[in-house]
């Protein structure tokens, strides 16, 4: 049985400017101890998905409007707030993007760590303090006992993220959600922090959801990847398969827009043209269609379902044998994926149907 099972999750924000369709029916499973990458550009709903799992969406605008989240046999969508609070930190912990702002500036690290521990465990202050020292040593902070008395501003960015990791691991959670944990750090520190995260989650058997827009980060860290676009999962596969055989035009685009050092003959980078869709509009058709070089007329009107690449394969939704699934009407062939553009003779992307030409006019100009 999976540790976490998300089915058809729908999250919308009701604002004065209208409804924002942030997450539009996302489903995925996570095994105990598994590391899952959630990849996509800013605003694609990856952070919102996880805030929804924790039920920490900004109130009152953000609401889970559909679907279910089962965690360890509990229905997180309908769990009473008091039980949810018990669960946060103890069973599910989070690491945030910016270590500069995710620690309270007026409390010492000791006070914040001890608070975390004592919020869930009946221990004395002294025991909690010893545990905090142990945790700081575990994440590689020297002279932990002295550093406990320091305030967040007395730590560097990398050190603060280590403190955050120590706090997240304090109660040995079953699931850790790391939301862009290294985006705000120096490149040299990034690798250290990622390595630390991987080592500690592997040692403790903690499952992890790693949210990032950096394919380089997920490549080395995760066993499985969900690629998200405009609130949809558009491709999911084990990390190995996804990199070997990217099958959604967006994934292909992502892979072609990052430089690779191991390329024998360096190609030019191919950017993904255009901008993500306006999520204030109810999604119609494939959200990637306006930017897609492979699009067919049907792409403008129907969102393709997330189906196995190989229709004969038995569906597995999680674990190392997970089925490679993709949501696309016109999948790039391996050769096309390699080239980063359609190679079929005489193929041109389908023009938008008349009824939405006007609405999409600015995007079309960008493409032309």
């Amino acid at each position, binding site marked *: 049985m999976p540790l976490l099972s998300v089915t058809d999750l729908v999250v919308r924000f009701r604002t004065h400017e209208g409804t924002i369709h942030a997450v539009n029916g996302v489903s995925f499973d996570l095994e105990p101890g598994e590391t899952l990458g959630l990849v996509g550009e800013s605003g694609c709903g990856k952070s919102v998905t996880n805030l929804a799992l924790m039920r920490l969406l900004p109130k009152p605008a953000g609401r889970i409007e559909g679907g279910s989240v089962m965690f360890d046999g509990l229905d997180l969508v309908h769990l009473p707030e008091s039980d949810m609070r018990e669960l*946060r930190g103890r069973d599910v912990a989070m690491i945030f993007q910016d270590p500069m702002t995710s620690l*309270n500036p007026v*409390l010492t690290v000791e006070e914040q760590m001890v608070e975390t521990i004592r919020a869930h465990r009946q221990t004395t202050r002294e025991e909690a303090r010893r545990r905090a020292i142990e945790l700081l040593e575990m994440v590689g902070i020297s002279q932990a006992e002295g550093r406990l008395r320091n305030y967040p501003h007395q730590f560097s960015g990398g050190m603060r993220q280590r403190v955050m990791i120590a706090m997240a691991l304090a109660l040995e959670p079953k699931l850790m959600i790391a939301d862009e944990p290294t985006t705000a750090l120096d490149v040299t520190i990034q690798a250290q922090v990622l390595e630390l995260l991987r080592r500690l989650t592997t040692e403790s058997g903690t499952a992890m959801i790693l949210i990032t827009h950096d394919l380089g980060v997920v490549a080395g860290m995760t066993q499985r990847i969900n690629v998200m676009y405009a609130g949809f999962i558009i491709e999911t596969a084990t990390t190995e398969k996804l990199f070997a055989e990217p099958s959604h035009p967006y994934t292909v685009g992502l892979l072609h827009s990052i430089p690779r050092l191991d390329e024998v003959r360096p190609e030019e980078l191919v950017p993904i043209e255009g901008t993500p869709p306006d999520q204030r509009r109810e999604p119609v058709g494939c959200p990637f269609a306006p930017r897609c070089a492979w699009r067919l007329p049907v792409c403008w009107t129907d969102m393709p379902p997330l189906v196995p690449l190989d229709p004969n394969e038995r569906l597995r939704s999680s674990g190392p044998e997970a089925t490679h699934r993709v949501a696309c009407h016109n999948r790039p062939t391996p050769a096309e994926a390699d080239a980063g553009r359609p190679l079929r003779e005489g193929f041109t992307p389908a023009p938008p149907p008349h009824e939405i030409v006007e609405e999409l006019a600015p995007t079309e100009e960008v493409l032309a």
Partner: protein
Amino acid sequence: MGATVAAPAIAAQDRASRGLWHDAARRLLRNGPALLGLGLVTLFVAAAVLAPVIAPYDPIAGALADRLKPPSPEHWMGTDLQGRDEFTRILYGAQVSLQVGVVSVFLALVMGGTLGAIAGAAGGKLDATLMRVTDVLLSIPGILLAIGIVAWLGRGLPQIMLAVAVTNAPIFARILRGSLLSLRTADYVVAARSIGATGPRVLLRHMLPNALTPLIVAATLALATAIIDVAGLGFLGLGPPDPRTAEWGTMLTDSTKFLRQAPHLLFFPGIMIVLTAIGFNLLGDGLRESLDPRLKR
């Protein structure tokens, strides 16, 4: 939330001085106008506290033979209608002003702070209702509201304190609510909730200490207004019930009848009110600048 929780929270703030407060103090000491303000406030507080020690005469009993004397080596600021030493009465007047100012601003902080914290934490309809009430209070000129309250509850120092507090409370409520609202989405607040901290705990331990800075500045500035309000009430005849009490505003009123014979009786209380108000204003502005790292000098 018992005393056991409150105690470490206060200790935490004391130790935080090494960080935010230490830096702020350094910036304050480099700020000329703020230093001047600090000097004036220190003089004022010293005068109030040390009045019984340094005052050369009795503030209430006078010698009628010495009435309305101009300033002289014996009476630095002259004497009033009853022959009482004006300098002594100025010192004792500072005592009244300080007492009323501090108590009323503290009361205002408690009332406004509670309202603001409830509004900021609860949000929604409760927030809207409370804020409309503060809007109504804010729309009435402060001194008019204070006169109304003293007229309603009768003369007396406690009534004056309450009146001045009520005029300041809505301002504090607005400020605290504003800072709490902006903190609701701060990363460390979401982080605190993500580790399972309870609502009151997030509010008291993570949000309030970070929202206090603007309130401290506002309180310092409010002390200036409070002192003017107290003097204003005294001037309008709504001062302390005992007419013998040395109070700057009352002293001003009493002196108007002898403007030609003894202008010093108008000058000294007036200049004291002005200097004290300027002192608190300069200090408040300086505090605002030094507590905000973005306004580095």
